[in-house]
């Protein structure tokens, strides 16, 4: 190829490259139109089941006692979790473990692990019992929460749980969490005679 042709070919290649369809590794711009339909918070209330667990925002009206919770537990929970939540046919204990985290035999239970008591309400309502989640009444869920907290020694036998009292239960692991501080290693790329 003669030099003039080479220059021409390079120029054409550059122009083609410059005019090529845009490619982006980033996400594309939002189109000017949208297809969402407005809905009111009232119309989606049945789906709005989350509890903001540090302060209990989202806890519904209702109440339950430890004794009521024992009855609900024995009807709906005991088959998998065992008597007095000490472990059953499917799952391990939900009682104890407080103080175990500084050992290498950590026991993870709602009592030892949950930093905020409303987690019990949120999780039991959304996921339990496993064969019929989202079917328990608010009273039943408050009662089961009261019973599990009592078995863990965190509320007395006469405790009543509701949207006011549940967030006030002091959980032992409340200050047990630290934010992600990784990377926490600094390996080097040794190639020869390493270690």
């Amino acid at each position: 190829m003669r030099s003039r042709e080479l220059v021409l070919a390079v120029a054409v290649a550059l122009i083609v490259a410059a005019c090529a369809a845009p490619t982006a590794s980033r996400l594309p711009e939002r189109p000017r139109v949208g297809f969402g339909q407005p809905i009111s918070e009232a119309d989606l209330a049945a789906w709005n089941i989350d509890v903001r667990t540090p302060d209990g925002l989202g806890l519904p009206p209702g109440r339950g006692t430890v004794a009521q919770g024992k009855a609900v537990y024995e009807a709906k929970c005991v088959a998998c979790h065992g008597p007095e939540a000490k472990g059953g046919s499917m799952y391990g204990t939900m009682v104890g473990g407080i103080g175990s985290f500084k050992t290498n035999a950590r026991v993870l239970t709602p009592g030892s692990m949950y930093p905020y008591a409303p987690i019990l309400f949120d999780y039991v309502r959304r996921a339990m019992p496993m064969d019929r989640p989202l079917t328990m009444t608010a009273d039943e869920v408050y009662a089961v929460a009261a019973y599990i907290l009592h078995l863990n020694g965190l509320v007395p036998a006469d405790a009543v749980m509701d949207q006011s009292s549940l967030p006030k239960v002091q959980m032992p692991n409340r200050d047990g969490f630290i934010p992600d501080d990784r990377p926490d290693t600094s390996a080097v790329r040794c190639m020869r005679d390493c270690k």
Partner: protein
Amino acid sequence: MGNDTKHSRRSFLGKSAVIAGTALAGAGVGGRAGAEPLPIPPTAQQPGRPIPATAYGTPSKFESHVVRRRTDVFVNRQNWSDWSMTPLQHQHGIVTPTGLIFERHHAGIPDIDPAMHKLVIHGLVKQPLVFSMSDLMRYPSVSKFHFLECSGNTLADWTKAASTTVQQTHGLLSCAQWTGLPVSWLLDEAGLGPGATWVLFEGADGSNHTRSIPLDKVMDDALLVYAQNGEMLRPEQGYPLRVFIPGWEGNVSVKWLRRIKVGDQPWHFRSETARYTDPMPDGKWRQFSFLMECKSVITRPSGGMKLERPGLHEIQGFAWSGRGRITAVDVSVDGGKNWQPATLEEPVIDKCLTRFRHRWSWDGRPAVIQSRAVDSTGYVQPTVPDIMKARAIAGFVQHHNGIFPWSVSASGEVRNAIA
């Protein structure tokens, strides 16, 4: 070349003297004797199966061993909150075949009618919105290749060699092309309210699975996904809709997505306090440890395989990083004393499985082989002892991205050599 050498030679020599010089040196004119004369295979002497009028193609019946499997370390007593693992030792490219993508569900696999499915966005937004699947599919779409890894991948193999195969040590890992639209488009459409900093994603499965995600990550690269490897999501992958959060632990890519709520702080659900947190030495727990750090593993040869004879063996594996691209993978065949750069095979994509290859001539003596990945932030994959200096590793602990060795015995058996 044919085994009928007499015929082959005669016709070949008759053609042209011009190419005879090279042809005579070729195998076609003779060559070494084979072990057995090759018969005509029966499949070449009859028609195969007729083409069905309608069908979804499936692998050869001779590949029926290539399936998802459960862990071999312990047995769950129920199979609704359970998992299955990808056979990485049989994965030849960077894309995991859709039927082999690992599963982790908390209450089984729902079968959701897309005509009935709705997604709602509410909370700290100017106007709550609801979308049908057909609404969502009217938007322009985007497709991205990304890996998906469970935070619990490799959790049984920190301080003892518990699992047998790479499917069971690393098979909570898959890679796919994901198609959908940016979550940011819909949040912008709803209009973010003052103080918006965290976003809740909730599934429509029986666990009503929920996670809190920082808004910055959602706006940066989170996708609402309805398709995977060119087809609509499989039921076990979240059909008809999931969120996909690139580079972060799989648990946050909530499947069967039905609700997005914007808030001004995280919700601290069970799934981000009592679970999916990492034990630390002083009795503390590391929370919101979303990112899956740079990691690699040799998939061939790997645990449970046998090298039949010394000589050339291509060491193959995968490397990936939730922080970016893979920039290098090194391979050691002497237990980590000396390392050589492996070849990275194109394409090398951000937050995606990258294939590495290294030609190894095995001398027939015992060896320990392992890989070490480096990502575009300069982070070098650590060893398990490196990680144990920073974290409390006892029992089944998540976020294991340690270098993973396999031992090769003199008879060629390959075994888990993590400890």
